[in-house]
């Protein structure tokens, strides 16, 4: 697996300086290692407060690590020095955050095209791709709406395809569907799987929802409470394409669910 790993995390650690008067500082993540293969859909589950967002921030190069390293295609990312951080590692790591972070002064279409504009890659071909993605997630007809005129689910879809539109080799997702109601969430999970089937991107998807982790992933990592380490690794050998609604009653799903449940504290 590690021979063809696209992204590797080695002994990664994050410590937050403690308040004055205390010597011991708080490690949120310590000695965390895993790797992701090209085209793999990796899901990570862990209890809340286990540093999942911090982990993705470090991989996305918007937060410094206190130790360890992140390698992308065997190239070491400059992650230990705040000055040399390279957010998104030159557009090779996409990041769908918990909040949609759409620009309120841009319409939905302008938001989706934003990465192409700043990368200087806006042309007929990429524009057609954006339009295709907008249709695929059912946002056609809302191109000229501003974010405040869209529902939470629609904003989430827009932020998702804003990352897909420039086609980064790795996409990080931080509980992207956490704030949505169950119904919308299921629809979006189906959308995500359909989009993933189109391009088979490498995805690292963080969630606290075990069901979601199993339903979406090829492999699931379980994190411990802080300081976070890998508590277990589970191969999800459920056939694809998967039926998100029907999968819940699959005996294999139930068996994996129970295995993971025991590890998540």
């Amino acid at each position, binding site marked *: 697996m590690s021979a063809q790993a696209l992204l590797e995390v080695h002994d990664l650690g994050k410590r937050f300086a403690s308040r004055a008067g205390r010597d011991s500082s708080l490690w949120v993540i310590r000695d965390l290692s895993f790797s992701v293969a090209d085209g793999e859909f990796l899901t990570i589950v862990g209890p809340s407060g286990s540093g999942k967002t911090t982990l993705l921030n470090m991989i*996305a*190069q*918007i937060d410094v690590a206190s130790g360890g390293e992140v390698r992308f295609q065997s190239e070491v990312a400059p992650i230990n020095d705040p000055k040399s951080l390279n*957010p*998104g590692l*030159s*557009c090779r*790591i*996409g*990041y769908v*955050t918990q*909040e949609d*972070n759409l*620009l*309120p*002064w*841009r*319409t939905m279409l302008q938001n989706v095209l*934003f*990465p192409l*504009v*700043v*990368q200087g890659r806006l042309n007929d071909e990429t524009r057609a791709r954006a339009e295709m993605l907008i249709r695929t997630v*059912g946002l056609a007809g809302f191109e000229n709406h*501003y*974010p*405040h*005129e869209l*529902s*939470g*689910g*629609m904003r989430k*879809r827009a932020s998702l395809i*804003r*990352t897909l539109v*420039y086609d980064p080799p790795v996409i990080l997702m931080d509980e992207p569907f956490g704030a*949505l*109601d169950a*119904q*919308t969430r299921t*629809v979006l999970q189906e959308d995500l799987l359909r989009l993933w089937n189109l391009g088979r991107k490498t995805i690292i998807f963080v969630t606290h929802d075990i069901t979601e982790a199993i339903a979406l992933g090829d492999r699931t990592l379980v994190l411990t409470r802080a300081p976070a380490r890998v508590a277990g690794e589970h191969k999800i050998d459920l056939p694809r394409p998967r039926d998100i609604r029907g999968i819940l009653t699959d005996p294999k799903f139930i068996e994996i669910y129970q295995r993971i449940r025991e590890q998540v504290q």
Partner: protein
Amino acid sequence: MPGCAGTETPTGEKMATQSEFSAPPGENSSRVGTLIRSRGDQLLVLIALFAIWQACSLWLGTYWVGSPWGTVVRLTTGVLGGELLSHASFTLAEAVIGFLLGGIPAVILPFLLRRLPIVTAILDPFMVGGYGAPKLALAPLFILWFGIGIESKIALVAITVFFIVYFSTLSGIRALDTKLVQMAQIVGADEKDVARHIVFPGAVPYIFTGFRIAMPYAIGGAVVAELISANRGLGYLIQLGAMNFDTTGVFVALLATGIIVFIGNTAVNVFERRLLRWRPPSDAKNQSGT
């Protein structure tokens, strides 16, 4: 309350269906309704003010309080004769030129200082001092320096506008959402893209708040500077009226000043609404309601 039934839909239901977009038209028609109603209320207040004014003038005599009718007649003949218009346009020119000379650097400077927090911190006490200093006290000084012509009035307006717009622009830049900046950097935005696509559009509402507050001060500043020394402008008319015990003349100039402020405010509103179409209506209302 017509149209309110429609506005319930988007918050009550999060499902991404077409139905939730039945809301905006209903919202619009109810907004037009409240607009008409508030215009009607404003007209009532205007009539009440004129009634009080008329009562005062009847009670105290037109020698002390010019009658509304006489003021309106003098205003109309002054406008039609062109004399009042020329004084008013002189004042307006001072206000507009001063507004631009003070306002444009006040918008640009905080953007230049954005990457230099130390310089901003060093400048801060001086800026606060300049903001707090009574501008009226500067008028005699400016007349001494720039003469009794248009230059001294422009200088006073510019300095008044500058500090107001500077601080509101600065707070707009400070209110920057770092998550949006991180998002932009991850998708490949460089420093220039961040300034152009994130920092500036985010600061625009704050800049407009500054413009809105500064606008009456610009016209007031021009009038005050004219009061002290001038041979043209609405301030000069006020001074002239007072010296000749022509209270109606003073009222005419005051009314004209009020009308100019009203027009200026409307212009800022129209411009703002065009530029800030992206904002949720409730936000925009809170801003323009001040």
